[in-house]
């Protein structure tokens, strides 16, 4: 398990990360969400000891530096283009393998896994962003680490690449490892993450499972449609539940399908449709971070 405890980072007068604590469990993919400028990348750097600040992060009870071979404990991808442009992809990984005490034979294995074997002898300076991301992922998994910390790994990947990455991350976690991944692609996150840590302005907003996050959203509810829309509205209003016009019926918040069904049965109102409407991760995220966005668009174009 990764335990981040009281992470705090201050740039001059600005508090970029504010007493942030959370856990990343093994066997799961934990998404790391937050609006632009929320402090996600800074948090990751603090976790890895790259930036100075208060707090600590323990990997199996020890800071990363406390392990004999840190690269075999945590694999990281913080930036896609972190390589010397003329050092070949294979040599780039060999340099990292040497530094991490990892056998050189592993280099060709990871190049095969990420699909870069054919360009292993080329300098990555001319790689596309997607290929660079793959090389970064190869570097992260080089030491077969128990923990993967990935900052926006899907950036620049094509749809096939994103699908591959999603499956790869899920499989990696299923092997008993932990993956901590930040991404702006909320639909992707919804498909691959089990848990989420949501931050805004450097502070923890939520640490929960995707399921609970979505279920707790006000955007979720019960959709109901009747033959008599006017009467349906009256009945719902009399019951003092929160309703919103939705398609040809109404969305009812804070009630289960059973409760709404019984309410309408008691009012002898024919029901054409009654279903649970889940909020999307995007709706839940936007709802949570509405007050935490540092950089907002001004208005309509």
């Amino acid at each position, binding site marked *: 398990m990764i335990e981040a405890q009281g992470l705090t980072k201050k740039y001059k007068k600005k508090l970029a990360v504010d007493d942030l604590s959370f856990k990343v469990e093994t066997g799961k993919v934990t998404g790391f969400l937050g609006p632009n400028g929320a402090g996600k990348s800074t948090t990751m*750097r603090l976790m*890895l*000891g*790259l*930036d*100075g600040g208060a707090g600590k992060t323990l990997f199996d009870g020890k800071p*990363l*530096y*406390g*392990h*004999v*071979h*840190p*690269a075999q404990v*945590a694999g*990281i991808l*913080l*930036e896609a*283009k*972190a*390589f*010397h*442009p*003329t*050092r*070949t992809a294979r*040599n780039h990984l*060999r*340099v*990292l393998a*040497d*530094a*991490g*005490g990892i056998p050189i034979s592993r280099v060709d294995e990871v190049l095969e896994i990420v699909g870069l074997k054919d360009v292993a002898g080329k300098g990555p300076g001319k790689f596309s962003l997607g290929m660079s991301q793959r090389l970064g992922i190869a*570097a992260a998994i080089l030491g077969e680490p128990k923990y993967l910390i990935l900052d926006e790994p899907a950036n620049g990947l094509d749809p096939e690449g994103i699908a591959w990455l999603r499956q790869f991350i899920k499989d990696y976690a299923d092997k008993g490892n932990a993956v901590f991944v930040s991404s702006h692609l909320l639909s992707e996150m919804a498909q691959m993450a089990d848990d989420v840590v949501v931050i805004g302005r450097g502070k923890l907003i939520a640490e929960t499972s995707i399921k609970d996050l979505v279920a707790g959203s006000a955007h979720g509810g019960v959709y109901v449609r009747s033959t008599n829309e006017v009467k349906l509205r009256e009945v719902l209003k009399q019951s003092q539940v929160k309703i919103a016009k939705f398609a040809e019926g109404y969305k009812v918040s804070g009630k289960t399908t059973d409760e709404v069904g019984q309410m309408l049965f008691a009012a002898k109102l024919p029901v054409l449709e009654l279903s649970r409407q889940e909020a999307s991760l995007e709706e839940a995220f936007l709802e949570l971070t509405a007050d935490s966005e540092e950089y907002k668009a001004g208005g309509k174009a």
Partner: protein
Amino acid sequence: MVPALKSEIRKLLTVRSTYVITGLAVLLAIGVNFYIAAFKTTDPVASDALQKGVVMGTLNGVSIFVAIISLLLVTHEYRYNTIYYSLTSARSRTQVMLAKVLVFTLYAVKFTVLISLVSVAAMLIGLKVGDHHLTAQHIDWWGMTWRSLYYVWGLAAFAAMIGFLVRNQVGAIVAYFIGINTVEGLLTMVLKEKAAYLPFTSLGNVLTSYNPTTATSIGKAALISGTWLIVGWLIAWVLFVRRDAN
């Protein structure tokens, strides 16, 4: 420590600039020594020509290339952001810094030996081509060896130190060259004989003193430049350990 050292050696040997810059230094050493020996030599050849002119003179001229390689070994990490891999792979930042020091030290030693050998060979071939004869040479083997190694290593150490302090490749190169040429040049005019206490002037005095105004004893020059290096590296180490990665 060993993994970090292996990684740093591989870094040095897997970039094109190492070979291009070393090759350029070797070509210059060969070309200049051959040309002087073949076409500019007057008989009899001076008894200190081999030590002072060929080995130490050539090293004085081409060691700037070692400095550049040493500087690139550090600043490439910041320019291409590979520093975060280096720092998260090692158990301490001090290990990373020590590994780099060891690698530029090894490279400086190899460079000194290589340049010395090719320079002597080029001189001997040049003498033959010019139909000159090498007279008996006086060689202070110990003095020549330690002074040459210390000078080349010192330049590399100053360059790497500036790389660690500045962390920006262009900025470090500019700082290094301005430090040697502009700042020390101007200060020498102001300080006159006291300029012997300046870092690069004192280091130069270890190898050869062309400027009689700033010349000191070789031991004193080594002590002065060594003090600059120790103080500079202590500051660089403290900052490297305490600052954000990049």
